[in-house]
């Protein structure tokens, strides 16, 4: 790790829901920022810089930072906006770490958000169209069949490539659709304990989820994440300030973000992809290995106390838990059956409900870091895991399914001076 120790000293979120029509984008973002500053016992004058981000073009605003900068007190200070698709929040959080660890700044606010309801179409259709618009038009110019495109891409609706990924995982692990019901039910139950979460369903059972309509086998409606309006913010500070301001700071112990080849939009001349199994996720495996090396973690299965995994679809909680080294290959669903991933289990996964219950896309990966920080700081209230948290892992997934961020937070810095 770098020369300076860095910690999260404050966290702030907004309530998440389908339509936060009571606020505009700038109000929404400032709500999270001021909540975080209050939690960090820090005033605006002490903040050196802002790292901000959401999905590009979502909510119909292309450069939101130019608008909301005034609302978060940024004028006169550096503002850096980052957009890396679904991993945006993870990149924003890691950039705040770099900014402080490098010695450039002492206190940095990182904030990420999404406001889906400002777009006309549900979800993120318009924003996502922009991602590969020219490439698609090029293919249409060469006779791409709309029927085939719709059947292969849109039948899974928002599920997109994830439904294929789930099928690959089922085939090689022996996991069944019932296990996706179990993960989704757990997400909704956990979310019911988290006052900021979107899809809250106390006492939700796998049977409740199994009753929901099938979208495309193996995914049901009950498996799918919502499109949420909401924002998350963290205050990141150097060691001396962190020790003064926070009773238990959440120390950055390792950060990594490795990518793999683009494997969804066929960006390269609409050509094929060398990734034969989309559940392979090499980028996640490599990122996790790097993070454990930085943090001196020898056995993640024993040393990681809780993980916040980016899992818009329940299959991804299982896939990524294995790729993060928390379970052996193809066994996470067995641990799920034994209750090991429950909030009071051996290794709780997404005690906040995760992305499966709350998905303000640009913010989702920062929310994972924020939720991991809450667990380390002991501030997760009703969804606090009932054990001492020394190491909490936060994961982000996005890009065209090829970007991954992994961040490890702990109760002590990676290096003591």
């Amino acid at each position, binding site marked *: 790790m770098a020369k300076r120790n860095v910690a999260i000293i404050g966290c702030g979120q907004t309530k998440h829901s389908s339509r936060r029509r009571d*606020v505009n984008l700038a109000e929404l973002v*400032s709500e999270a920022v001021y909540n975080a500053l209050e939690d960090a016992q820090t005033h605006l004058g002490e903040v050196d810089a802002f790292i901000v981000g959401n999905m590009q073009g979502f909510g119909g605003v292309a450069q939101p930072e130019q608008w909301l900068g005034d609302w978060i007190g940024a004028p006169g200070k550096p503002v850096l906006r980052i957009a890396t698709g679904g991993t945006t929040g993870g990149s924003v959080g890691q950039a705040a770490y770099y900014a402080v660890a490098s010695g450039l700044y002492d206190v940095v606010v990182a904030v990420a958000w999404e406001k889906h309801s400002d777009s006309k179409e549900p979800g993120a259709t318009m924003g996502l169209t922009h991602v590969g618009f020219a*490439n698609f038009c090029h293919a249409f110019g060469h006779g791409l069949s709309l*029927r085939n495109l719709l059947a*292969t891409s849109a039948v*899974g609706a928002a599920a997109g490539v994830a439904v294929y990924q789930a099928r690959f995982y089922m085939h090689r692990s022996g996991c069944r659709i019932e296990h996706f019901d179990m993960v989704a039910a757990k997400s909704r139950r956990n979310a019911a304990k988290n006052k900021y979460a979107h899809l809250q369903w106390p006492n939700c059972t796998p049977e409740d989820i199994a009753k929901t309509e099938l979208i495309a086998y193996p995914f049901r409606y009950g498996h799918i994440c919502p499109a949420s309006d909401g924002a998350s913010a963290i205050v990141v500070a150097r060691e001396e300030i962190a020790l003064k301001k926070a009773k238990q700071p959440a120390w950055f112990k390792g950060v990594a973000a490795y990518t793999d080849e683009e494997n969804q939009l066929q960006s*390269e*001349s609409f050509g094929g992809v*060398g990734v034969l199994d989309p559940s392979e996720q090499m980028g996640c495996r490599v990122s996790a290995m790097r993070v454990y090396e930085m943090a001196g973690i020898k056995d993640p299965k024993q040393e990681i106390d809780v993980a916040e995994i980016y899992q818009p679809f329940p299959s991804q909680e299982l896939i990524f838990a294995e790729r993060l080294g928390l379970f052996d290959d193809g066994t996470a669903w067995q641990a799920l059956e034994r209750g090991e991933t429950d909030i009071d289990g051996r290794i709780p996964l997404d005690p906040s409900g995760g992305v499966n219950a709350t998905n303000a896309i640009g913010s989702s990966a920062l929310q994972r870091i924020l939720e991991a920080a809450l667990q380390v700081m002991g501030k997760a209230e009703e969804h606090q895991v009932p054990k001492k948290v020394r190491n909490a892992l936060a994961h982000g997934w996005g890009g065209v399914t090829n970007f991954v961020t992994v961040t490890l937070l702990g109760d002590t810095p990676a290096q003591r001076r």
Partner: protein
Amino acid sequence: MGYLKDERPETMCVQGQWNIGAYKYKASTLMEEYVQGLRERKLVASLCFGCGKVILPPRNLCGRCHRRMDGRRVVSDRGTITCFIVSPPVQKGKLRVLGTDPVETGVLKEGEILVPVFVRFDGSDSNVNTLLIGADPDSVHIGMRVKAVWAKETRGALSDLEGVEPIEK
């Protein structure tokens, strides 16, 4: 901090239209090469001289070894299903893409069951995402052998490859 919500309780719908016209875009000539192959009912793939991978449809750059994929190989139009999903019967009003309902526009048929698949054509190292045609959805399995379904009259377009169908035993 004062919020506007005190004076304006809800977001408003702001009417507006925007024709983005045309983007400028630069693609290689690979697409032309590929569709010319389709006209002759041939699947033209690119070969990486770095790692030996054969990728279909062809691409210019190898994703993992970062070398130009200058080689070409014609791969078999027979292959194996590596992944499949099964849709429930298509219904009007269920799906909306870019403002239109594909059942209303006739792109998808009411009641049809779609089976999108990943196919690895023999001799290639990649999956092609396409439709399985003419198969009982209950009989589909990973490892199932399939062959390309070509348009009756090929015209040098991506739609010349309509999908795949089971190879009868």
